């Protein structure tokens, strides 16, 4: 049994190197970790709660890593016209005009138009 697990682990190690997808590689890592945990760390002989705890922890770490490693969406830059704060301020009334009249910049802009 232990030798069969070794062969599986070697195959999984090779597959991990060949795959170009992080999700697949992490799934293989979970499979390898569970095989080592159950057979070599002898969790199959331990209390079921310990085995379940180990499995849940390994799977949770893998899912957490997959979520964390997901590329973040690109952020809008100033002046790109994408509805950012910068694009609003370029159309707002000059601050000195608003200060002189005592009105808000949006009111000044509306009167000017």
């Amino acid at each position: 049994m232990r030798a069969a697990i070794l062969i599986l682990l070697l195959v999984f190690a090779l597959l991990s190197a060949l795959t170009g997808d992080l999700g697949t590689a992490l799934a293989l890592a979970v499979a390898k970790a569970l095989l080592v945990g159950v057979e070599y760390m002898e969790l199959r002989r331990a209390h079921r709660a310990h085995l379940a705890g180990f499995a849940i922890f390994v799977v949770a770490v893998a899912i957490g890593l997959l979520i964390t490693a997901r590329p973040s969406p690109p952020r809008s830059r100033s002046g790109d016209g994408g509805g950012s704060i910068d694009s609003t301020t370029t159309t707002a009334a000059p601050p000195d005009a608003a200060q002189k009249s005592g009105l808000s910049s949006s009111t000044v802009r509306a009167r000017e138009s």
Partner: protein
Amino acid sequence: MWLVVVLEFFAFAMVFFVIADLRASRPAVFREGQQALSPLVGAVATMLLVTSGWCAAEAVHAVRTELLPRARRFYLGAFVAGLGFAVLKVLDYVDKVRAGYTLGVSDFWDTYFLGTGFHFVHVVIGLGLIAYVGLRVGRTTFEDQETTVAGTALFWHMCDLAWFFLFPLLFVRS
């Protein structure tokens, strides 16, 4: 020993998440760094570690069944395969440093040396434990043989588990 393993794995998990966060936040830096890594070398390292782990598991079983010469052979196998992993990592570090990839060059190399270095320290400690138990088993009466023998193997398997997650995070192209 289980408590040590759990605490160590939590420490490793923090390193994993730092690497995963870098993959997401600095993809260009990460991709550039990964170009210098060989997944094949990483796969060979994984194979050496799992072979070593299997030898350690067989050694524990042999000690329990009082087949001491067999246990010593498997401890030797575990040590040699583990040493192979350590030598591969040292050669890898030398290669990277000669190519100009050191700490401070980029965030990728900082996390690479932090993550694999932290793991390497554990491998060296594990090798020491395996050598000690392998040389002493059957010749010394341990205070608690089961804890000594199984605990050493447990620590060694924890090194396997940590590498299983480090490998895809660092070597699988983003």
